[in-house]
């Protein structure tokens, strides 16, 4: 079955190659159907544009937290009428945290990360000419583009953008009289997200179909690099859970605009009783978190895949426990869909349900622990090439452990009671999914930059400076934050001055903000390095990291269809690093890696793990 499918694709792609040589600027750079170009489009729009806006917003509200009520000219410059005389307004503070969360979780770490690397690596690492449907791929990107535009347009509304927190719980998000952001701002937020979800679904379906159908000859599922496994499973989780968010968004739109009562009941606001009767905000919470929790794995799984791959390449060792890694990805994916209730222990749902969700939530720690130990063992007795990508991978394991461990506290319904919705939660998820996913993304960009930009390489010294400032800064921001949470400070407070019991915590807030400013500034080094390398980067060797996977066998110069001749055939898994024969000599003399395209040598055992 798969052989014939491959043969067909092979012929078809050859046709493509012959007939589509003349490309205009528009078909090549704008409405491109080439996965390599779409990947770069996602990277620039999702990561660089949306990421920069999201991070800049966090700096604004961090300054407000450290120096509450102070006047800053930068507030006046960026916030205009929402910062009269440079003092930030309380409504715009909530708008900033809301849009920061939305941009970072959905736009940067979901579509930015998956869109960039799934598009770039799936065809190249499985040995395909392109995605199963180039047109759908293009459509997915342009819907994402429209969604970005709508979301950004909402920032310029008279009453401001959505401000009900990134989880937009009704009734706050449903009632325009509850806060200014719940008017037009929320409408645009919902519209943008609906389009975003459609974009994400089209993209995910394409990834799944491509991985299942377009693997080259010899590329069985257990020979796939772990990156592909991660992207594949991520796409499946997206397909399972994003439609539920869409339904939540649609029902919310109905409640807002057409007077239904799905999520609303018994409301008296601003002197009048509203007609809503019989709905429940808790229902919305269930629908939201049925996506919302798998969402954090949609964010972290691609990063895990990238880290596994980068780590094996740079350790010059096979990833430890390949099959266990796949099993844990699958286990995490499965469990991720049945743990959503741990966001709702104190929402008013039946405490018995809380018990069930505690059980499933703590179970998820097991595959996570297996992954962490497997990464650590991959380093053991390696010959570590500490490239910037490798440092970010090690950094990712470090923050994943630090952030993940506090999940044991938050996942325990009992302990959640007192730290729920405090800064403890903020510290937890920023380390375990925010910073970790960003590290995975950075690792990917440093590692695959030569694939994206025709052999050019990023400057490693700027990469080292970028990594070390970021690594120190991230811990500097988020480690002390746990203490703020354990002192009982709730999240989404515009300032903490209304409670004398929080007075003495201001010095921690200042420390975190200073670290945040330093860390964010360090990202400018990365941007500079990235842009400079696109234009002035030196072309390195074809396979600079001496990796086994297929993407490095493609010519540096991009061509439509990826490989000029036949698609390479695969004879082994992607992790034959430092494999030796009985005499302790490398299988290929003088070379510590065996590309997947090299047939098994005589007397060589295929160690299929």
């Amino acid at each position, binding site marked *: 079955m798969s052989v014939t499918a491959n043969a067909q694709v092979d012929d078809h792609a050859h046709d493509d190659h012959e007939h589509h040589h003349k490309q205009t600027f528009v078909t090549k750079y704008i409405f491109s159907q080439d996965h390599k170009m779409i990947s770069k489009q996602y990277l620039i729009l999702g990561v660089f544009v949306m990421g920069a806006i999201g991070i800049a917003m966090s700096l604004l509200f961090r*300054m407000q937290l450290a120096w509450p009520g102070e006047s800053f000219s930068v507030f006046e410059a960026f916030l205009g009428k929402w910062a009269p005389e440079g003092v930030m307004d309380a409504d715009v503070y909530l708008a900033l945290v809301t849009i920061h969360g939305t941009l970072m979780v959905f736009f940067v770490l979901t579509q930015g990360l998956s869109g960039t690397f799934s598009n770039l690596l799936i065809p190249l690492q499985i040995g395909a000419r392109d995605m199963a449907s180039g047109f759908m791929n293009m459509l997915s990107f342009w819907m994402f583009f429209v969604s970005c535009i709508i979301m950004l347009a909402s920032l310029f509304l008279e009453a401001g953008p959505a401000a009900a927190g990134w989880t937009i719980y009704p*009734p*706050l998000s449903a*009632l325009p009289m*509850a806060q200014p952001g719940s008017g037009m701002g929320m409408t645009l937020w919902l519209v943008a997200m609906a389009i975003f979800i459609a974009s994400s679904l089209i993209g995910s379906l394409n990834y799944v179909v491509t991985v299942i159908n377009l693997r080259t000859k010899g590329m069985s599922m257990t020979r796939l690099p772990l990156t592909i496994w991660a992207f594949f499973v991520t796409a499946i989780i997206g397909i399972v859970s994003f439609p539920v968010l869409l339904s939540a968004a649609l029902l919310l739109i109905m409640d807002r605009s057409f007077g239904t009562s799905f999520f609303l*009941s*018994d*409301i*008296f606001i601003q002197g009048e009783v509203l007609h809503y009767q*019989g709905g429940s905000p808790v229902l919305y919470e269930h629908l939201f978190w049925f996506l919302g929790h798998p969402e954090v794995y949609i964010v972290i799984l691609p990063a895990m895949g990238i880290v596994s791959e980068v780590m094996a390449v740079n350790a010059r*060792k*096979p990833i*430890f*426990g390949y*099959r266990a890694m796949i099993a844990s990805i699958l286990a995490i994916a499965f469990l991720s869909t049945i743990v959503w209730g741990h966001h709702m222990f104190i*929402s*008013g749902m039946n405490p018995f349900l809380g018990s069930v969700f505690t059980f499933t939530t*703590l179970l998820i*720690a*097991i595959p996570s622990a297996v992954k962490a*130990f*497997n*990464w650590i*063992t991959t*380093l*053991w007795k*390696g*010959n*570590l090439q*500490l490239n910037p990508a490798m440092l970010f991978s*090690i950094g990712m394991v470090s923050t994943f452990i*630090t952030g993940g461990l506090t999940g044991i*506290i938050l996942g325990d*319904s009992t*302990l959640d*009671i*007192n730290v*729920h919705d405090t800064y403890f939660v903020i510290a937890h998820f920023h380390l375990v999914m925010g910073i970790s996913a960003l590290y995975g993304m950075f690792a990917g960009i440093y590692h695959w930059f030569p694939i994206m930009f025709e052999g050019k390489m*990023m400057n*490693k010294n700027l990469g*080292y400076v970028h990594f070390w400032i970021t690594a*120190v800064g991230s*811990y500097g921001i988020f480690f*002390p934050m746990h*203490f*703020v949470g354990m002192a009982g400070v*709730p999240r*989404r407070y515009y300032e903490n*001055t209304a409670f*004398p*019991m929080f*007075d*003495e915590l201001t010095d921690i807030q200042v420390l975190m903000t200073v670290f945040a*400013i330093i860390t964010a500034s360090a990202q400018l080094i990365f941007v500079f390095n990235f842009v400079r390398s696109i234009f002035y980067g*030196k072309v*390195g060797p074809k396979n*600079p990291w001496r990796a086994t996977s297929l993407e490095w066998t493609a010519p540096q110069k991009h061509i439509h269809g990826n490989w000029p001749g036949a698609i390479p055939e695969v004879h082994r898994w992607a992790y034959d*690093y430092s494999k030796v024969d009985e005499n302790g000599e490398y299988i290929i003399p003088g070379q*510590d890696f065996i590309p997947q395209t090299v047939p098994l040598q005589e007397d060589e055992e295929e160690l299929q*793990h």
Partner: protein
Amino acid sequence: MTTLLTLVVLALVAIAIWQMTKIFELSQLKAENSQIANDSDNKTNGYLLFAFLIFIYGITIFSFWNYGKYLLPEAASEHGSDYDSLMLVSMVIIFIVQTLTQALLHYFGYKYRGVKGRKALFFADNDRLEFIWTIIPVIVLAGLILWGLYTWTNIMDVNDEDDPIVVELYAQQFNWTARYAGDDNVLGKANVRMIDINKANVLGLDESDTYAADDIIVKELHLPVGRKVNFKMRSQDVLHSAYMPHFRAQMNCVPGMITEFSFTPIYTTEEMRQNPDVAAKVKRTNEIRAERAAKGEDNSDPWEFDYVLLCNKICGKSHYNMQMKIIVETQEEYDAWIAEQKTFGQNVMGQADAGSANDFGKLETATASH
């Protein structure tokens, strides 16, 4: 001033980055001009990884040393001590795992930093190792889950045993109201549709419900020490969350439904003020406030410790200042206080006999408590 400070910090960072790039570049002069890590990069970054391990330990110790004292004081509720011991044990486990795994990760990064020509070990699998690090988390987590669920079930079991007082916490943008069930200890029926601002029926009590007459509506929560309280939470507009951190208690207030939480306070406000941790915190805070007063800034009055109820679910513009004072006092003080409060009947329904019903009920409660 702070703008200046920020600019100075930024400038210093910029200089540091510029200097570091220079150092890196100088150290690279001799080596080949390639963007792939060479032995000297591996060596430098290997050492830095080791230094980073020390940094992680350092920031942990620094945080505990400096910020440990900021954590919430001893729990002031009966179930709170169970909560605190589960938290302590979980924290100890977390720190053991954190210390070990970070050590392994960064030490391996340093120890096995690349050297040209060295052979890495082809080590792809080991069932026994993987079994070990699957089964250990299973056992530890099973313990934590069982203990956690046992505690959870106890905490969340809101029942009528031990003669609890029944109090409604009513949330709205942006303040709290408490309603005591009165002498019959049963809350009168209520719904937002019955709110009548003109008659000051702000919680929407059903005026025809006889249980409502003796309900007492107040803006300050008083609780007798040692007596179980069953809270019924309601919200009239958006989601709120009743967060009482000193009692390890929190529950969302959801429009359209009544949520519940129950706890028994064990220290009066006065006793809590004597707690050495709390006293030290008050002293530190008042030093900060005195400094502010000296500079003529706001928010500088001396502070006295009080329990507090905070809103902990984003609810709009003044979410950050939605609070209510909680006073835990002796039974006598509580009785005296509640006797001074007017009932709903007296305030709104204008019932002449509401007062006498009140007295009768009080007598009954007094007998029951003996």
